[in-house]
């Protein structure tokens, strides 16, 4: 895995794996998941999932608890490899490189595919140091260069105006919503192309949630965002495409508008209308 910022163009045209939006022409996928199955020990959590995620848009993943959506998300940057008993089959191509292959550089992968978690988890350091942490790890030590990265990242995370006068304050003094945006800034500081978010607003109040959702729509201009959420209205508001998982299977993947107005599969219909799950 390299940190190249260009999206590789595949050699051949597409066929087969579900790509939201049907046959509509668009940018080539940045992620291609091909026949992905995953087991925790004897328990199968993902069943033959194939989907293609296109760059620079928000893709939402919805489904009831235990459907495999978080597992799927954590597979996309190999966070899942922290679980010792995990076994996978199939391929996950990020820019045409199989990230499930053994030789993959996980540090580089996780810079390229950043992650934001359910609960804000800033380091017990200053606001500045939280954002500068990743770039420092990557060997950037020039103070001016770091300051530049910190400002850019905080601006992109829509936090700069709120913290620019107190960059040396402890990050833990920030409100929950600010902490979550700080975590997004921290992910952005290492130049990712893809940002994974696992229930990023579930610990936030409505005002902080609204800010975060607004931010997601801005990030879409530059980044590929994949968000797992229990909140279907949030998925409807922020995403261009929505995937519905059930019992480890990808049931339906389509334009969000389609999923919430006329889903094709009766199981999707039952879930989005709240008749089960």
């Amino acid at each position: 895995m390299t940190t190249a910022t260009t999206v590789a163009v595949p050699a051949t045209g597409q066929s087969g794996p579900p790509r939201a939006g049907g046959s509509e022409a668009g940018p080539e996928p940045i992620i291609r998941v091909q026949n992905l199955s995953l087991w925790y020990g004897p328990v199968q959590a993902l069943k033959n999932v194939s989907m293609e995620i296109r760059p620079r848009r928000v893709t939402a993943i919805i489904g009831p608890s235990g459907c495999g959506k978080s597992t799927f998300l954590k597979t996309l940057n190999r966070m899942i490899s922290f679980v010792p008993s995990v076994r996978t089959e199939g391929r996950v191509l990020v820019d045409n490189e199989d990230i499930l292959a053994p030789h993959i550089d996980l540090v580089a992968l996780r810079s390229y595919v950043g992650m934001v978690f359910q609960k804000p988890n800033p380091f017990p350091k200053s606001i500045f140091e939280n954002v500068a942490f990743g770039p420092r790890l990557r060997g950037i030590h020039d103070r001016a260069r770091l300051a530049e990265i910190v400002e850019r990242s905080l601006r992109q995370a829509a936090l700069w105006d709120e913290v620019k006068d107190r960059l040396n304050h402890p990050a833990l003094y920030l409100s929950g919503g600010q902490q979550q945006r700080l975590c997004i800034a921290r992910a952005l500081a290492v130049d990712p192309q893809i940002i994974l978010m696992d229930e990023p607003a579930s610990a936030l109040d409505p005002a902080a949630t609204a800010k975060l959702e607004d931010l997601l729509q801005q990030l879409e201009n530059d980044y590929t965002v994949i968000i797992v959420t229990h909140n279907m209205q949030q998925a409807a508001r922020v995403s261009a495409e929505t995937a519905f998982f059930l019992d480890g299977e990808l049931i339906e993947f389509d334009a969000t508008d389609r999923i919430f107005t006329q889903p094709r599969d009766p199981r999707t219909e039952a879930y989005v209308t709240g008749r089960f799950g």
Partner: protein
Amino acid sequence: MTGRPSFQRQLEELQRDMVAMGTRVEEVIQQAVTALLDRDQETARQIIAGDDYFDQRELELERRCLSLVALQQPVASDLRLLGAALKIITDLERMADHAQAIAKSTLRLGTEPFIKPLIDIPLMARLARGMVHDALTAYISQNEALARQMIARDEELDRLYKQVFHDLLEFMVEDRRTIPQASQLLFIAAHLERIGDHATNIGEWVIYMITGVRSLMNN
């Protein structure tokens, strides 16, 4: 249907009350045409006075639809049901307006004998009322085939309207003294034709509600 029983109940009540309004619309169309044929001025006056009922129902049902959208955030088939309901309510109220307009023409026609026996207008009325009835049945029973079959009948209504139009035009050309009566009868035929169009609209919304596909069939 296990989840959200209270929401489901409110949707069912809404549909039930819409059909109750629709049944009253059917009745008032029938009454308006009967009053015309019987030269029954008293009934015509009652129809005009009763229009307030439909206006009130329209406002009340609309308000309930919008509340459900705001409070329950419906999606997929629930959203289509409510979207269709909002439009259908308007069509129902418009149909009642046309019935009232027929009653107004009946008053203007007075009790003077008709220039010719009315044949096609009662035929149009029967057809229009049947379409309204089937539109409501298709709505409540989610019957796409019935909706399509009902919409197809609108062509016959249009054909009858054109025929009435030409017949009455001939009367007016031949004898100017028929103009006051013939023009009122022409309005009445046009109202019946419009009622058929509103029934067609309802049918199209029923098809959308069931299939998710919005297409304009007639008009």
